[in-house]
Structures are given as structure tokens and as C-alpha cells.
């Protein structure tokens, strides 16, 4: 699979989620922040996007913290996303 296909698959998995909150946040993140990430952060984001919404949401709303430092960087960026 080429880069375009991989990105499209990621887009589908970011914007067809169980919760509207996650569709909005991850979609916005993918458009604006994802292109600026370094390769390790990009991988961490792909892993986060693979999580189920009820695991990911507590990380994003701050009720749980992540143990992995790179993942924590990406989650911090996710927390800063404003959907308008």
C-alpha cells in the first residue's frame, strides 16, 4: 500500500468512529497537526487511532495519563485541538 492509500485508510479510521467527539477531534488533528509530526509521533498517532473510543477519550479529556512519552506528546497535541 502506498502513502496515499495509507493516509486514506487512516482518514477513514479517524472519521468513522463510535463517538462523534472522536470523529471531530481526530479528523481535525489529521488535517492540521498530523502533517507536522515527526515519524515516531506519527506512529504513536496511528496507534492511538487504533484504540477504541472509550480507551482514547479518557486520555484526551485528561482523566487518564499515558505511560509512553511519545504517546504523551501526541495526546498533549490532541488535547489542544479546537474544533470550530
Amino acid at each position, binding site marked *: *500500500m502506498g502513502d*496515499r*492509500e*495509507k493516509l*486514506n*485508510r487512516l*482518514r*477513514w*479510521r479517524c*472519521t*468513522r*468512529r*463510535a*463517538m*462523534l*467527539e*472522536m*470523529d*471531530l*477531534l481526530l*479528523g481535525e488533528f489529521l488535517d492540521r497537526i498530523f502533517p507536522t509530526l515527526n515519524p515516531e509521533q506519527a506512529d504513536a498517532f496511528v496507534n492511538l487511532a487504533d484504540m*477504541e*473510543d*472509550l480507551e482514547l477519550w479518557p486520555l*484526551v*479529556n*485528561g*482523566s487518564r495519563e499515558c505511560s509512553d512519552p511519545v504517546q504523551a506528546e501526541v495526546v498533549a497535541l490532541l*488535547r489542544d*485541538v*479546537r*474544533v*470550530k
Partner: protein
Amino acid sequence: MSKLTIPVRKFDAVIVGAGGSGLRAAIQLSEAGLKTAVLSKVFPTRSHTVAAQGGVSASLGNSEEDHWHWHMYDTVKGSDWLGDQDAIEYMCRMAPEVVVELEHFGMPFDRTDEGKIYQRPFGGHMSNFGEKPVRRACAAADRTGHAMLHALYQRNVRANTQFFVEWMALDLIRDDSGQVLGVIALEMETGDVVAFHAKATVFATGGAGRIFYSSTNAFINTGDGLGMAARAGIALEDMEFWQFHPTGVAGAGVLITEGVRGEGGILRNSANERFMERYAPNAKDLASRDVVSRAMVTEINEGRGCGPNKDFVLLDITHLDPATIMKRLPGIREISIQFAGIDPIKAPIPVVPTCHYQMGGVPTNYKGQVVSQDATPIPGFYAAGEVACASVHGANRLGTNSLLDLLVFGKSSGDSVIDDLRSGAIGLKELPADYAERTLSRLNRLNTQTGGASVNETRLELQRTMQKHCGVFRFKDMLVEGVAKILDVEKAVLRTEIKDKSQVWNTARVEALELDNLIEVAKATMISAEARKESRGAHVRDDAPDTAANPNGRDDVNWHKHTLWHRESNRLDYKPVIMKPLSVESIALKTRSY
């Protein structure tokens, strides 16, 4: 064209949808030894059922006395007497059984000290035929839908259900006799188009809340099942009935729980006025959902909305102690900051009434068989869950009854497939020669379109039109105009253009195909709503007000009937509401008041 062939896979049953209803149906079929395929646009446990937090209702009577007949009464009343009483009796009687079954499948329900399923109160649940509140909702903390999906999914894995994940069903296959023979579907990873040829087809595709600009529904709810059924010549029932939630974040749609007003949140207009004092002097901001929603729309329509376009009102909690907000309303601050760009401790949250749940759908009986207008089953076709209209929710749904609907009708549709196979009513019939033609020409049109409309812009236009012309509070002239506008939007949908023509993971194509479904639902909704000249349940018209002759604007003489919208020439038909339950006496028409 008819020479074009596509690969064919054969199954006993194909289920489209892996939310609560699809997974429940699949358990019945796989455990009966049938070769069962389940198609889903996403991994099963990412289905929208996850978003349900409130709970599932059943008159278990674990905390206090309860009875299925009382549950039935509440549901008929909630439906504003538009629900079919045979289906409602069936659902409420079956509730304890399917909930306990779910417990045996491994659902981690909250428990009482004695180890029974814990039950909590919920709006509209009453004991003794509307007398006083009763605890009937069963939950697994605030993750009921999530836990339910996991329990059902595990059970399916055990039963060897075959999953086709990230596959999108495109069209229903029907032969000349009207029998349903399966679906045509697209595999996103390869772009392959394949026929799933089956003795039985079950639709469990969920709702279509994305037809509205402001919706609490996730992006996946594009009404694919409704679009496929409509294109295959099956009428859609009661599509004018949509439940709205008063407080969705303006723009984003994300739900702000009722608890915010419970803790003292106040709704304000552009003059900073607490306007609910005028509409509901006693209950004020805590009045019922419909009263609050209508008041909000009236404020906006009369020019007292806020923001540059005056198109929302404000939910104010700035007067509450920040410690209370953090403690009693966890998550609300984060939601407001992320989705409204506002810290509610410092400034009020912009909100609008927001689409939440679809009561109408593909017409079925209580056995989950899809039926034609005269109630005869369409051979080989079944439906359950939010896509289906059994009709248990009628003109308005009672909270927690939809998760119950998934379990009861998911199961009964599976049982009907088994019965119909046994009796020989259905079997594997040959595919007609031209079965793939309509789908392939739709795909071909999309691949070759030039100078066409943008999918994103057309979808937005559709959503704005529905929100403005067919929202929570409806006006005659706006509806008439809305019909013309939505038919205009349809013209753009017929000529959408995508730049990306590739095969593998072409999400632009998938989104264009979703839009083909949204437009069918939008037309059905607008046209059915324009025609129904009364107010009932969630369908409230300004020109059908509360009078002595027609309390709440409901007109039983002329409108106590189900709508059927036919895609072909947008024709409407009506069919009677089933007032005769299965075993008890009919619950007679009465004014609905809480």
C-alpha cells in the same frame, strides 16, 4: 451492460451492520449453524452503539415492583400512540429475557448488594400505568453500549460468524418477484465490488442522523440501509419523526447532558434574558426536552439568537462555583473547550437543538420481517435496530428503549430467518441476469463525471436545508420551500464528482456513495413532514397548535396513521396503526401529558 459480472459469494444469511442489532441477529443465526456473513463499514466494536451510555430498559423489578405491562403503557404513551401495540407488547414482554441473556453472554451490568442487576430511574419510566417513577434502566456504568457490543462480539467469535470489516454494502439485490437475494458490497481495501448472494438478508445499519447539520450522531450514521431499501423499491415508514436533544454544542453537535441544567445551568438569549421563564414559568430551564427545544427555536427565529448569524442560544453556568462544575459535571468543561472553544467557567456555551434519534425506518413487523404496505413479509428481507421501524417508538422514543429494540428485534429477526428457512418460505434463488447493473452504472457514473458538484459542499447544503426547514419546530411555508430545496439538492447529488478515481482505499468514493443514501433519507423526511398536518410526538408544527379539539395539536381523526414514502415519484401512502396488542387489551388513545 448486463454482461458485466462481479464475483459472487454465497451464504445462508448476510447481515449488514455490526452494531448491537446486527451482532444480536448474528448470534441467533451462527449458533443455529447457518453460514452467516456480517458486513460493516468499521470494526464491529466501533459501531455507534458504543455511544449509548444511559442504559437498557427491562421490567426486571430488581429494585422495586415492576411489570412489562407498565413498560408497555409507558412506551405506547411515549410514542404518542403511533407505535404498533403488538410490537410494543412483544418488546416489553421479551425485555427481561433478552437482558438476562445478555448478562449470560458476559455483559458486566452494575449490581445491587445482593448481586442482582442494578436498576436506575430514567425519564418516562413509570409504575402502575403512569403513576410514579420506577427504576427500570439497567446499565454498565456509563459504558453500557460499549460493554454490550463487546459481549455480543465475543459470543459471535465463538459461534464462527464471518466478519467482513471495512466493507460497504451498496445495494440490495431483488428479483422480479420482489424476493431479496442479498447485497452488492464494496471492499474498501481493494475497491472490489462483490455480490453476497444469500437466502436471507438482514439490515442492521443504524440511524441516519447525519442528514441534519446539527447532530449528536457520529459521522458513520448516513442511513445506508434506508438508501438501499428505497432504491430497491421499498417504502420508508414514519420518516418525519426525529428526536432532538435541546443542548448540542452549536456547530459541532456534541451532546451537553441534561445534568447541566439540573445543576443550575440557565439558557439565555442575545439580550442575556433567561427566556425559559416566559415559556415554562414553573419548570423553567428544566422543562421537558420538547418544550425547551421549541422555546430555543422560537428565540432564534424571532431574532434573539446569539453570535454573528444569531443562530444559537447560550447555556450559562458561569454563576456556578467552579468546584461544583468540576465535581458534578465532569467532562463538560473539556467538551466546551474542545468543541465550542469556550471555558464554561468564564463564558456561556453556545447550544442548539440537535438531532439525536430516528424513529422511522424500513417497515417491519415484530418478528423483524420487512413488510410491504399490506403487512405481508417481503421474502428474504429482515431488519432490526435504528434502521427498522417495527414500530415501537412511534412518534417519539422513550430513553433506553432503543438498546432494548436492538436486542429484541435483533433476536427475533434471526429467529424469523431460521423459521422461514425451515418452512421453505425462502431459499437460494438464482440471481437475475442484470442484478449488478444498477450498482455498476452508479459507480461508473461517479468514475466518469466531469464538471460535477463537490461531495462536501452538497452534503453541507443537504444538512443545512434539513436543519433550517425541517428541524425540531416546523412551519408550513418552510416545509413547502424545503421540499423544493431538497429536490434541488438531489440534482446536485446525481452529478457529484470525485477527483480521486483510484481503487484502493478511495474514501472520496465511499463518501460520495454515502451521500447517495443521505439524500434518500432527507427526501423521505422532508416530504413526509410537509404532508403530516398535525403535531404528534417529535413532529411539531406551528400551524397545528394545542387546542381543545386537538390537544397538543394532535389530530387523531385525520392523522392517526403511519406514513409510507415511496422513492418512485415521491408518493406517500398511509397505513393504520396496529392498536391490538398480542394478549392484553388495547391501550386507548388519550392525550399525552407528563
